[in-house]
């Protein structure tokens, strides 16, 4: 079974990934909604920016995070001053890196499900007395819920596997930023730790596979499973 250290690594990974996807959720949903429904100049540019972490070398993303969210970076200073959150060499920084890397996947899943919502249903809700905001909350959000959940699960899986941007941005600090992949990388540097690598790798495979299966099931449900609720 796992040693105490390995348990800590697993729990840290889960904490970092959960914080990453939950923190990114409002931004991801907002961006997904804008890209699905908005008509504005620069939409293609915004779309490109959202997807950038998907194609950029992770080490570049990590370096850009360092510039922006480091102790002397503009965003880093703002967070420290107004919210008292610092990212450098802390698990919060690992969560931020994971969130940025997971964002494109989350936005894609959510955008597809928002685009699949029949807008005429919102019009019907308006004629029944619902304000635009209420129609959004009672029609658009519940109908795109499977996509929102799929985005969360997919983002979570991506966060669990995050390595390059994290190690560049917040380094490799046991108990703070040494998540599963970074722990595996560290163990590989130490001769005779094959068993540790194997155990941690197995956990990674199980977590990722579980998340992928979950998101696949959610996607299926959204594409017609609702008919199975009644007869």
């Amino acid at each position, binding site marked *: 079974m796992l040693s105490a250290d390995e348990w800590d690594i697993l729990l840290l990974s889960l904490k970092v990934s959960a914080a990453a996807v939950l923190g990114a959720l409002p931004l991801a949903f907002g961006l997904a909604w804008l890209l699905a429904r908005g008509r504005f100049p620069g939409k293609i540019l915004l779309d490109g920016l959202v997807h950038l972490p998907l194609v950029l070398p992770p080490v570049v993303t990590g370096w850009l995070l360092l510039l922006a969210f480091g102790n002397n970076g503009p965003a880093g200073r703002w967070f420290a001053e107004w919210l008292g959150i610092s990212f450098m060499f802390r698990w919060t920084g690992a969560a931020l890196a994971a969130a940025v890397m997971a964002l494109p996947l989350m936005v894609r899943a959510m955008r597809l499900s928002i685009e699949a919502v029949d807008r*005429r*249903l919102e*019009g*019907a*809700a*308006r*004629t*029944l*007395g*619902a*304000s*635009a905001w*209420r129609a959004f909350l*009672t*029609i658009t959000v*519940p*109908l795109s819920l499977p996509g929102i959940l799929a985005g969360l699960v997919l983002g979570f899986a991506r966060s669990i596997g995050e390595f390059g941007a994290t190690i560049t941005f917040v380094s490799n600090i046991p108990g703070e930023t040494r998540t599963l992949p970074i722990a595996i990388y560290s163990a590989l540097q130490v001769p005779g730790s094959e068993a540790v690598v194997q155990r941690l790798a197995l956990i990674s495979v199980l977590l990722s596979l579980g998340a992928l299966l979950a998101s696949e099931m959610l996607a299926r449900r959204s594409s017609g499973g*609702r*008919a199975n*609720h*009644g*007869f």
Partner: protein
Amino acid sequence: MAFDVDVRRRMGDRQIEARFRAGPGLTALFGPSGAGKTSILAMVAGLLRPDAGRICVDGDLLFDGAVGIDLPPERRKLGYVFQDARLFPHRRVRANLLYGHRLVDSADRWMTLEDAIAFLGIGHLLDRWPRTLSGGEAQRVAIGRALLRGPRFLLMDEPLSSLDTARREEVMTVIERIRDELRLPILYVSHDRTEVDRLATTVIPLGSKP
């Protein structure tokens, strides 16, 4: 006047125009497909903004382009029955029926859920999901949902067009009873002559204009 409508709107390369006044009863907008009938209903509902004009229903001014009045759909106190019923797929029949009922001031309600169920004969459908309903059942539920919202008038967009003959008869009877027993002004869109002859108090012919 129940309906006093004068609207214009450019849709792509088409100009949609309508100007009519009609008394109580059922007013049919009658014309070929593509004459812009649905767009006119959407303008009366507030779902589509006219470029110019004026919409007054039962003495309430809903839209006046000249003075910048444009009530949002939720404040126009109308019931809209769509061609395809347009029930909310994630809510059972009961929750569909009550969606607007719960949003409206209790003073504006004039029908209870029990009344609507008895009026439309839909008591056995309450726990069903919309996807499992036949076309006629879905359309009766849609009518119930619109009535329970406590509307001052109804808009109906070809509510019979997706139904077979037996179901048409069933829904047509319901519409006649809304017209005669509930005495609700209805603005009704159709391209079917027999339907209009049977239901309409007033017929407004619409042709497509270039």
